[in-house]
Each structure stands twice: as structure tokens, then as C-alpha cells.
């Protein structure tokens, strides 16, 4: 299934882009998705504990099972204001 994945802040710089589309197996979780990117870009792995994820623009736990067409974003600590 196709999933749209967004990266922001320093994560975007590590990945080298803000947006990717990936083909995931059915039943994959947000954690599976992150691990897949961390496998390709090992520098990403060290940020695992200081990243939160969103699914369809709501903060979501790592165990969230993804559905076709979901939009997932990986968000570093926010610093607006």
C-alpha cells in the first residue's frame, strides 16, 4: 500500500527531502515505517527517542497500524513561538 511520508526540521536534512512515497506491506506500523528509513539513513536512528509521529495530521503512537493512503509525518521537537 502507498503511504505518503513527510519529514521536517533536522530530519528533512538527514533524509535529503521533505516528502517521500513508499510502498508498505499491509499491517505495517509507524515504527516499521521509521525503521525502514533509518535502515537507509542510519543517522536517523539516533533521533528515534526525540521524534514523534503523526498520522493524517494527528499525533499517533509508534504502534499505529497504517491504512492505504495514510499521510505520516516524523516531527522533531517543536520550536514555534
Amino acid at each position, binding site marked *: 500500500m502507498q503511504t505518503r511520508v513527510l519529514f521536517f526540521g533536522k530530519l528533512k536534512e538527514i533524509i535529503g527531502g521533505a516528502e517521500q512515497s513508499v510502498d508498505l506491506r499491509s499491517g505495517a506500523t509507524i515504527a516499521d515505517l521509521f525503521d525502514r528509513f533509518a535502515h537507509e539513513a542510519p543517522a536517523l536512528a539516533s533521533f528515534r527517542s*526525540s521524534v514523534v509521529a503523526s498520522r493524517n495530521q494527528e499525533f499517533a503512537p509508534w504502534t499505529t497500524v497504517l491504512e492505504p493512503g495514510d499521510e505520516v509525518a516524523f516531527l522533531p521537537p517543536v520550536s514555534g513561538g
Partner: protein
Amino acid sequence: MSLSPHDDLVLLVRDPIAADALIRHVRQAEDGAVVTFDGCVRNHSHGRRTLYLEYEAYESMALEKMREIAASLHTLFAIDGVAIAHRLGRLEIGETSVFIAVSSPHRKAAFEACRHAIDTLKKTVPIWKKEYFEDGAVWADGELPPVPAATPAAKPAS
């Protein structure tokens, strides 16, 4: 730009924030107070001289989280109107990065609600700031937003 059921205004803008317009938006005949917060770009950070800042956002989600903040203020405080604007892109020293205006019949609720709005924005709205110094740039330290616990619906039994 987005209007909520309470006629609140939440905005992400790339040009200078029109603070007067936000104040006019919330200021109605039944109000006795308008409290505002003007967050501006400081010329130093952790002892280093800041040259300028760049802000980026997950714009659709940021607007939704800003709408949620505005809605929550109406349930938590006896207020009338809310306007919240955050600027994106490059900001120079002294420019306004975020402006919040809250109106209420009596001042106490507006003070408390305005404080709550900026504190919550800084913790939950997906916006990031990069600080540029003479010798490099860093993403500012931030806060990790709270994430809801996993629910049975999010993790079906197999």
C-alpha cells in the same frame, strides 16, 4: 486563514503579521479587555549573537492544532474571541514571529487564556525554527509534543 465556530482566526503567514487586524478581529462591543502576546525575534540565543531565524511548519497540521488551541480556550476560560497568527520563512531581529489576541468581558480570563495559548502553541504546534549565527546554524531546542497512548483500535488483536 480559517474561521472556527467561534469566529476565531488562525493564520500562518509569510509577510509581517498585521497585529492591528487581529486585535480588531477579536474586539467586540461586549468586551472589556483585549490581551495580546507579541513574540518577537531576539538578537541572542545561548550566549551567541543571532543574525536571523527561519521558521517552517507542517502547515495543514499546524493550522489544525492552532484551531484546537483556540477552541480549547473557549472551554477553559470565559473569553470572547481568539486570533492567533504565526509567521513562516526568514525573520529578522525584532520582527514578530507569533501574535495572539484574546478578548473577554473581564480582563482576568483574557490574561489567563492568552498565556495558556502561547504555552500550548510552543508545545503542540508543528512549527520549527532554525537559528542562524555568524558561524553556522542550528535547529532550536524544542519540546516533544505529547502523543496519545496506543489504543486497542490502533493495535488490533491478531
